[in-house]
């Protein structure tokens, strides 16, 4: 079971233009900021939004082909959809919700309920079968919604921010559970999220969508190690700079260079962790260090450390200890030198 989609569609000023492949049995995390077009893409895949131009195939079967005028309606697509607020039918019990798809496909009531009960059990919510949605906790509702989608054995499972409505306390457990169910699921799945951790935990592949375009895709490892846009770099907590490399030097503008530990050539991305950045009141000694002057713009608690935003010709994030903040007397407006060892820098082609 696999999905291949080429979709172009306009909604007012916004244009979505993506090509997405989801191999059989894999889970793609679709990551992007609000308004990137993630939910629009999901709507097109589900058959709820009609795209201007698209070729969508599932298991080699054409679902949408605007060139030939083929359009398979949502109800015939074998797609399961779970959305942020779950949208469980409020007048039906958890069991009736889970049985809804089978009942709609003509399965007799008794048989449909028996299959639905099995799914509720499998997802660990068998004991709330007789409750109505308003009597369920967020985590339970999410599992019932998943059971409802899986009960019809869809070829493609679409999850739109499946954990966003949960409170912080229950999210990790539900996330771990969801990951297990996705691993057991044989069809392919697309998870839309704006939470990088969720994207990394749930997806085999990461697809980053910004302003209607795919800006980066790859395994979670590839994407987090080598971000290519500021959005991804910020999400994974890396400093990302761009420049042109020649030998061990990357120039990023007039008189702004980064020194590398090894040779590189052509347009490159330069990435380093905020933890690798040292702040000092004066220009640090030692020629192997990269050092840039800048102004402190913001200080923010970040775990046990303080994340300092330094603005200047080379904008950087630096993680320093609270002690260092006190020693250096850091406050917005203070001038500091940020330095990074060449060995701490990752460089890869842009």
């Amino acid at each position, binding site marked *: 079971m696999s999905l291949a989609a080429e979709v172009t569609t306009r909604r007012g000023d916004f244009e979505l233009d993506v090509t997405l492949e989801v191999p059989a049995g894999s889970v793609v995390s679709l990551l992007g900021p609000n308004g990137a077009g993630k939910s629009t893409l999901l709507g097109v895949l*589900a*058959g*709820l939004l009609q795209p201007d131009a698209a070729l969508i195939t599932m298991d080699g079967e054409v679902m949408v082909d605007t060139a030939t005028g083929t359009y398979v309606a*949502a109800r015939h697509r074998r797609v399961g*959809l779970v*959305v942020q607020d779950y*949208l469980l039918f*409020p*007048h039906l019990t958890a069991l009736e919700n889970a049985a809804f798809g089978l009942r*709609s496909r003509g399965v007799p009531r008794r048989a449909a309920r028996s299959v639905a009960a099995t799914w509720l059990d499998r997802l660990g919510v068998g004991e709330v079968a007789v409750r109505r949605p308003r009597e369920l906790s967020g985590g339970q509702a999410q599992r019932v919604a998943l059971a409802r989608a899986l009960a019809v054995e869809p070829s493609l499972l679409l999850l739109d921010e499946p954990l966003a409505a949960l409170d912080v306390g229950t999210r990790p457990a539900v996330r771990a559970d969801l990951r297990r169910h996705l691993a057991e699921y044989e069809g392919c799945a697309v998870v839309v999220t704006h939470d990088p951790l969720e994207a990394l935990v749930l997806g085999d592949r990461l697809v980053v969508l910004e302003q209607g375009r795919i800006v980066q895709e790859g395994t979670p490892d590839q994407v987090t190690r080598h971000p290519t846009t500021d959005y991804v770099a910020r999400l994974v907590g890396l400093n990302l700079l761009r420049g042109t490399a020649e030998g061990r030097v990357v120039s990023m503008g007039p008189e702004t260079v980064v020194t590398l530990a090894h040779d590189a050539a052509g347009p490159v991305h330069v990435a380093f962790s905020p933890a690798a950045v040292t702040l000092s009141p004066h220009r640090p000694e030692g020629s192997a260090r990269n050092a840039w002057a800048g102004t402190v713009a913001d200080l923010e608690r970040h775990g046990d450390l303080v994340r300092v935003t330094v603005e200047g010709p080379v904008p950087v994030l630096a993680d320093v200890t609270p002690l260092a903040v006190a020693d250096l007397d850091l406050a917005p407006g203070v001038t500091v030198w940020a330095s990074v060892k060449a060995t701490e820098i990752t460089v890869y082609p842009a």
Partner: protein
Amino acid sequence: MTRRSAESRVPAIFVVPAGLGLAILLLPLAGLVARAPWTRLGEILASDGVLTALRLSLVTASVATVICLVCGIPLAWILARSRFRGRSLLRGLVTVPLVLPPVIGGIALLVAFGRGGIVGQWLETATGTTLPFTTAAVVLAQTFVAMPFLVIAVEGALRGSDRRYEDVAATLGASSWTIFRRVTLPAVAPGVLAGAVLCWARALGEFGATITFAGSFPGVTRTLPIEAYTAIGAGDAETAIVLSLVMITVAVAVLAALRDRWVVRG
């Protein structure tokens, strides 16, 4: 604590007109209650003419409400959900009976469905029957004036319902009829119920269109309001007052039901 500020103090000039308005609204009702023949209430209510009119009114208003539900819900769905040219014009036309004087409605019905009318002529040739001055005419007149109440209530409920539930149902394989029956209708049920109650109350109180189109034949077309009108015309004030009290009780009951169950909560 009571709010006391300059803005909430009643301007002195309001007292007289407000009191007058209240008097105009309430004095007639108070008069009915004061003049009601309380001792002969049971006797009058149990009289043949009143019982027949009451039974006819309950049956015709209920049948009219069912017709309004069967035709009005699909009409409301089309107005709320489908997109076509002239939709707002259609919505306007549907609400015309609300502002039309009922007598004019009766005349219009007579012209359309009466002998020699556009539909009436055809009906007579096809089936050999005519509508005017039959119980069916009463139901038709009530349906005509009451349907807009239902359509407006249901259309409003449909517009306010979250269509994403229907999207989810579609991905689960439900046909548009299944979606309507199992998802949309339960979601708008309070609106449908409120609309049906208003619709029934309006049908029960229908007078002008009914007397014009169906006349006043005891047991056939003489509904409660027409019976009351006939009674007062014949000088039988006691019967007219008792019938009025019955209608007022129904009206108050409908208001109370809508207020407690649907209007406030919805």
